[in-house]
């Protein structure tokens, strides 16, 4: 509509309002995601959960090794994505949502690592015989992250995914058998990460075309 704006040209009040809307929406569109991060993490966690379920179901040895490799893989992926993002380009604008998400991201991952460290310390100091029920905590804290993302992006599937992960997290405290906890987690990840991630990916493709 307003190609090559010049300071001299005169436009009507309605056109001015339209221009304001265009500019505000243009800046807002800067904060978008392609969903790939959600899909990659979703696949890793889904494979770990479902894999552990099958290992427990068929009584295979070393049923936790899948989970033990998730975090090193995750750390490597985070490291690669940070380097790639830095190389690609520096941000030409900083939206309020981006700033908030960056700050919350630091807080979130710090909380997550602190929880992992705390659990490890617990097992190191308590002879490893106690049956602490910690799986639900992960899903609850991930739900928090999804909810914040979904709210900032105004993307309902992520918010619904967060609610499903909250329910799954709480349910894990009453599910007695580990393998069913893993199965519940796999379903929560499938519906909470992979489906919204895929929808974000489709949405971003549509926006680009």
């Amino acid at each position, binding site marked *: 509509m*307003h*190609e*090559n*704006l*010049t*300071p*001299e*040209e005169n*436009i009507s*009040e*309605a056109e*001015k*309002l339209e*221009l*304001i809307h*265009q*500019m*505000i929406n*243009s*800046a*807002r569109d*800067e904060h978008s995601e392609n969903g790939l991060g959600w899909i990659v993490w979703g696949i890793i966690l889904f494979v770990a959960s479902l894999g552990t379920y099958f290992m427990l179901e068929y009584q295979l040895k070393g049923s936790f090794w899948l989970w033990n490799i998730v975090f090193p893989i995750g750390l490597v992926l985070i490291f690669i994505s940070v380097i790639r993002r830095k190389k690609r380009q*520096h941000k*030409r*604008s*900083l*939206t*309020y949502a981006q*700033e908030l998400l960056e700050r919350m991201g630091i807080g979130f991952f710090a909380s997550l690592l602190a929880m992992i460290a705390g659990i490890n310390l617990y097992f190191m100091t308590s002879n490893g015989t106690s049956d602490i029920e910690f799986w639900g905590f992960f899903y609850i804290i991930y739900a928090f992250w999804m909810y914040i993302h979904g709210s900032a992006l105004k993307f309902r599937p992520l918010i619904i995914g967060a609610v499903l992960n909250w329910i799954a997290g709480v349910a894990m405290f009453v599910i007695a058998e580990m393998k069913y906890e893993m199965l519940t987690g796999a379903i929560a990840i499938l519906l909470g990460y992979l489906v919204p991630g895929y929808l974000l990916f489709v949405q971003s493709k549509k926006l680009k075309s």
Partner: protein
Amino acid sequence: MFKDLDPILHTPLRLAIVSLLISVKEAEFTYIRDKTKSTAGNLSVQMNKLKDAGYIEIRKQFKDNYPQTVCMITPEGIKAFEQYVTNLQSYLNTKP
């Protein structure tokens, strides 16, 4: 009775700059230039007018050895923009 529209925001380019900056915390000069589809010279002149009015802040710095101009709206600019939009809407609401 119509309220006067702020002459500083009365031109499309200055209005576009302020509308863009209202939605972000800060933005680079090149980003504003691309979004408003304006020329660097024209944009620079209009931004200086907004700066002189106290509506925006311009910060010049170096990033990765390259000069970088970062712009942000001031609280005064936010107030003026909000008032401008309110006045603009009153014009439209009273038109037949």
